[in-house]
């Protein structure tokens, strides 16, 4: 990574210096635009930080992850303001997707980081918060036409509730059409639980979740296209 501004943003994240990262992006945007800053500075910085986080073996702190997500939110807000001022047309939104902590799980940070990064990447996200029942997940997914549900669970005890979410997807006949992304500390430490509890995929970090959601969205589209083809007389 040779770009001093990108390195500066990564350094600011590692120091949990939200204001410092914003100053670097603001300086870039003053000569260019926030849209451009997202493409040339922030996205590569966050991707690099995401890799460092995923491979850190627990050395990265909660504060660093939190600040990274806040920086993404800050810059997204500036991009939206910029578009409004210039009356620029917003790029097509991806999704919608539904996100939440599973029933009995009250650890919101990872979920909120993923919401921030998904929205930053242009996804329409319906964030249901903590302690979400399978019925609430599926009611929202059906209401908005979501093809991906993201379910977060921090501990083994609450991760078991993801099975109930999988059962609800199957009960409603939505297997394949609705893909289930699962995440949380327990899945990093025990990846075998993803499949065991009916998840369709997981990501090593909140930033990697964006790639996961793209993949699962495409899987859903392929499933429904395949189903429609099979049903043709």
């Amino acid at each position, binding site marked *: 990574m040779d770009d001093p501004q990108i390195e500066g943003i990564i350094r600011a994240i590692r120091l*949990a210096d*939200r204001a410092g990262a914003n100053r670097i992006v603001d300086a870039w945007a003053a000569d260019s635009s926030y849209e451009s800053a997202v493409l040339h500075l922030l996205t590569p910085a966050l991707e690099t930080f995401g890799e460092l986080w995923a491979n850190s073996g*627990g050395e990265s*702190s*909660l*504060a*660093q992850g*939190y*600040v990274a997500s*806040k920086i993404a939110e800050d810059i997204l807000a500036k991009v939206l303001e910029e578009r409004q001022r210039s009356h620029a047309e917003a790029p097509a939104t991806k999704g919608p997707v539904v996100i939440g902590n599973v029933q*009995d799980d*009250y650890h*919101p*940070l990872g979920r*909120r980081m993923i919401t921030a990064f998904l929205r930053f990447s242009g996804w329409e996200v319906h964030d249901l918060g*903590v*302690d979400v029942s399978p019925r609430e997940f599926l009611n929202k997914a059906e209401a908005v036409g979501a093809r991906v549900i993201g379910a977060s669970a921090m*501990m*083994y*005890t*609450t991760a078991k509730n993801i099975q109930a979410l999988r059962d609800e997807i199957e009960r409603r006949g939505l297997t394949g059409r609705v893909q289930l992304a699962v995440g949380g*500390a*327990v899945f990093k*430490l*025990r990846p075998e639980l993803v499949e065991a509890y009916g998840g369709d995929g997981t990501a090593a970090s909140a930033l990697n979740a964006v790639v996961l959601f793209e993949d699962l969205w495409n899987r859903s589209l392929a499933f429904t296209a395949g189903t429609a083809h099979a049903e043709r007389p």
Partner: protein
Amino acid sequence: MTQADPPVVCIACSIFQREIQHLIQVKAWDVPCRFLGSMLHLEPARLEERLEVSLEGAHREGRRIVLAYGDCCPRMEDLGGGEAVSRTQGINCCEILLGREAYRAMRKEGAFFLLPEWAVHWKRVFKDSLGLEGINARTFMQEMHTRLVYLDTGLVPVPQAELDEIAAYSGLPLEILPTSLDHLQASLKAAITRVSGHE
């Protein structure tokens, strides 16, 4: 429990140490206890190692085991579900003390719970381990929670100075909640019934 039954030992988080020792003192609990430091919660892998060593030691002694812990590390279910082991029901120490309904209700309201041992060591938890300082600490805590709730089991003086520091650090209002040991006692008794078949 008959004389022929294997003896029981309790392996507990030190977050409960004063409370369990009080129950022993008032003769509401008579199982010997071994305590592991509550700060191990910040290092789940190390906590697992220490628990495995403790459990192996107790097994070698031919004991049945009550594990007074929440779901505090990724393999806790395996450790707590082993032969001759029964863990207290509850996702964490706060639920074990408050009972499931009260815990869930307050968590949904955004309560952040503090117990005596962690209140005294708050800087080690929040600053050293989580890396939260200054404005980041305040924005994080206020985004994730609505208030601090100190669970006062009445066995030590309320650490008011430390609680005031945490309130200033987080920008959250503080509530001191008198908390009985009824739920803890019930949870321990239920665990010993499961592991021994007797109360």
